[in-house]
């Protein structure tokens, strides 16, 4: 397993990223045309409110002082109040985050369940008809926009056949699995196509590796060769890809949450943008940055648990 030291080192490497994200978020409101205080408090804010905000953010102070205030406020969990919700940004985000996290993990699990077996079937039948069929189907899936697939599913399976709900999310775990099935499938169709393509070519490459030939020469059962020798090695590159595609996954979630009326942070971002709710936009941007970094870290840790050569560096 990865050492504590390694994790700390990775965390330290994230610091510059966060400084950059903070700077961008900070500049976002300051470079808007007009008064930043109005942007942050909303058009209908009273003069007293505006004054309070100027005070809190030090808008009359030099930029560096303002930035320092911004950083210390953020580190203390104070991201300001949402104009739209009239509650602290942190509260709004923490209320919505679990739904999105659930949806994302659900989608990733579904993607792996779909892509894993099919990648094996395609790779082992390389160039034959099962390979051709699987690749064609996924190619079509890849070339259709997420929201379009979502709308089709929604129209047929939910609105017409009533197999699934048209929106919302449940209270229990089981109800959530049911409510979020269509949104997850919508996201998963896209990600599974990417995973399938990558895993298929990784498996094909690993199947020809000398150590797999050697495993065959040892007389191991085929199941062991595929599971222990081929899959593990093929997964290394696929896990990297999965980690890197987290950004794409999130934008997919954003659209999907909107189509399926799922109250997650993705939809919240759209609402915030339309309402010019800058404090919320700032908070969400920061949240996404944190999420992406956490996913990268997890990907890394998973990889180093797979690959002993990574544990040295």
């Amino acid at each position, binding site marked *: 397993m990865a050492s504590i030291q390694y994790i700390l080192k990775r965390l330290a490497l994230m610091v510059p990223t966060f400084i950059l994200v903070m700077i961008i978020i900070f500049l976002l409101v300051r470079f808007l045309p007009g008064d930043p205080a109005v942007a942050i408090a909303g058009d209908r804010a009273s003069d007293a409110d505006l004054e309070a905000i100027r005070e809190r953010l030090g808008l009359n102070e030099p930029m560096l002082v303002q930035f320092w205030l911004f950083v210390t406020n953020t580190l203390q969990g104070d991201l300001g109040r949402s104009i739209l919700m009239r509650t602290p940004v942190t509260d709004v985000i923490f209320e919505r985050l679990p739904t999105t996290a659930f949806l994302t993990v659900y989608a990733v699990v579904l993607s792996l369940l779909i892509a894993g077996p099919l990648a094996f079937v395609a790779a082992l039948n390389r160039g034959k008809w099962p390979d051709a069929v699987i690749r064609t189907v996924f190619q079509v899936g890849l070339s259709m926009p997420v929201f379009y697939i979502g709308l089709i599913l929604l129209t047929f399976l939910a609105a017409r056949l009533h197999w699934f709900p048209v929106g919302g999310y449940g209270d229990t775990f089981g109800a959530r699995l049911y409510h979020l099935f269509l949104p997850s499938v919508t996201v998963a169709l896209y990600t599974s196509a990417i995973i399938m393509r990558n895993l298929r070519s990784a498996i094909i490459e690993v199947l020809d*590796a*000398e150590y797999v*030939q*050697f495993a065959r020469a*040892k*007389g191991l059962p085929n199941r062991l060769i595929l599971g222990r020798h081929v899959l593990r*090695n093929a997964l290394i590159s696929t896990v990297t890809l999965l980690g890197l595609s987290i950004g794409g996954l999130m934008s997919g979630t954003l659209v999907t949450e909107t189509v399926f009326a799922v109250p997650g942070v993705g939809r919240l971002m759209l609402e915030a943008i339309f309402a010019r709710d800058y404090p919320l936009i700032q908070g969400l941007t920061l949240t996404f940055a944190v999420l992406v970094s956490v996913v990268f870290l997890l990907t890394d840790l998973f990889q180093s648990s797979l690959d002993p*050569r990574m544990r040295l560096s």
Partner: protein
Amino acid sequence: MTNDMPILEVRDLCTTFSRGGVALPAVRDVSFNVGKGEVLGLVGESGSGKSVTLRSILGLSRRYGDVTGDVRWMGQDISRMPERKLRQIRGRDIAMIFQEPMTSLNPLLTVGMQLTETLKAHTDLGRAARRDRAIEMLDHVGIPSAASRLEEYPHQFSGGMRQRVMIAIALAANPKLLLADEPTTALDVTIQAQILDLILSLADELHMGVILVTHDLGVVAQTCENVAVMYAGRIVEQGSVRQVLRTPRHPYTVGLMRSVPQDVPPRTQLYSVPGTPPSLEALPAGCAFAPRCQNQTEACLSARPTLETISEGRAAACFNPMAIAQGEVA
């Protein structure tokens, strides 16, 4: 020793790959026997089909190309045996060590796992017994403090040590025949001799037959009883090492012999057969060696010489074989 019934008989082995629709005849009409405990040398330049021959014997080439001919193991034809049954011969009766120790071990699995999984596939030893046997094998191939190295990964071993690990894995289930594919080519000069000695002394101790692939006739001279020389996928000369090296009949064998460094530090290449082997996509109509041959005549360009028996166990494929010096017997 070779009077016994051979343990392995290879007859008319042909392996054909295809690249972009063009057929690549990597191995053609290869036939030889290996007796119990016999060490057979298989020599030829890089690309002559030595590795493919070994892999075809074990059925590893099937998934990449078309393999025909007979491979008889203890009298039973295994060339058409289904993968599921063949698996019980691989590793247990016939084991193989590969040319590249750096890429032939799985980088993600401990050395101990890679050793014990073979034992699990071929023996009914329990977990603890497999571990003991694994330690014993690592010890046997000369890996110091074997027990503590079981949990290590291939990248923690040097090339020579990895080759020892591969030998330990191959020999773990007590095979009767070892296919050794250039086991020392990728190694440092200083340890080549050690590894070769190790293989041969273990073979001797375990009464195991060996097909030793090499491109060095000097190694063959020191270690093998019989030798087959391959060129462009075919055997062009074969026989006992003594006879072949004393009275080589094929011009290519002579060329290879001249490229063996003598009285100089090993592996200083002083001479190599001029020219390069033909590409398999475009083999000449006649003798494949013709473009590089000093004895070449008109006949060599239009017809291909077949492998003719010269005497008991001795054959060569050449229209104008090398003359036999006075007093020598072919």
